[in-house]
């Protein structure tokens, strides 16, 4: 991450671009430390991370859509044919 090579602290505009790398655990120790230090002193970025975590939790609770009954019946018919052939 080129952004992190700079000497000065991270700008909020840069922090939001690093959120995924942070959450995915792909920042090295030093970069993660700078990220977390920024977050500790920045309510806006802390709120941003909080919103992102909520987004991920909501995404993880999306239920699989119901399958079209006609489609399901086609599949199960195919399954029975397959099972008989075996």
């Amino acid at each position, binding site marked *: 991450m080129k952004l992190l090579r700079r000497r000065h602290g991270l*700008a*909020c*505009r*840069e922090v*939001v*671009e690093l*959120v*995924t*790398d*942070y*959450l*995915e*655990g*792909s920042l090295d120790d030093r970069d993660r430390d700078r990220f977390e230090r920024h977050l500790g002193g*920045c*309510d*806006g*970025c*802390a*709120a*941003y991370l*909080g*919103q*992102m*975590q*909520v*987004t*991920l*939790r*909501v*995404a*993880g*609770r*999306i*239920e*699989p*859509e119901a*399958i079209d009954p006609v*489609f*399901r019946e*086609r*599949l*199960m*018919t*195919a*399954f*029975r*044919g*397959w*099972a*008989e*052939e*075996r």
Partner: protein
Amino acid sequence: MVAAGAFGDVGELGALEAPAGGERRRQIGAVEVGGLWAHAGHQRPVCNASAAPETGHCEMLLLVPPPDADTPGAAPPDDLRTVAAILAGDERAFEGLVDRYNASLLRVARGYVGTRSAAEEAVADTWLGVLRGLPSFEGRSSLRTWIFRILVNQAITRGVRESRSVPFSSLGDDEAAVDPERFLPNGAWGSPPRPVDGIPEDVLLSAEARALVLAAIAELPAQQRQVITLRDVEGWSSAEVREALDLSGGNQRVLLHRARSKVRAQLESYLDEAAA
């Protein structure tokens, strides 16, 4: 032979899996196709069974999820039991698999083909491919990765075959995660997001929030939608997502970042209202 009648162009899909130079067969029987499809399981990259074990679903509740293993690893025992049950003719076992993955298969298929009906056909053919390939499933990857590889392999070919194919979108490197106008010239927040701290759990995770997120995902460019669907909706590890969609780790993260940023932006006004 029942299967061949249930789905129109199964024979073509069989042919797509045939070795190079093989003739293009049409409407051949299920048994013959099965012979060709038995190779489907070997199309994926071989994963190293002795590599680090699967880290399992991402725990989104943690501040920082545990980093992923570099390789997806072998199939868990549950997968092998499911396969054995299906091979023994257990209809419920197959139906369970269909219930679990069909919606996500559809979402991913939409990334490769132009229409909903083409995506449905691609998914139907994927399930037939699963049945035909199962006897040769060796458990070197998880069952779900293997299923999605079958979809991706044949959906790519189908997308190419159809002139309506969706072009691979760019990674979107130049897209900003947040509207640049919300920052001051020095890069600090001018219009910061609101904290979610005071919002009750049932409001955060409401059906309305889920519907908003689902709608936002549906609007994403194809590759971004595929990655966020598998990683965040299905909860796959990034290693599994990379293997299923054949992406590098870096590309996967860029796609995931763009996808998550846009979905968060779509959820923000809901969260603002809830916080007010």
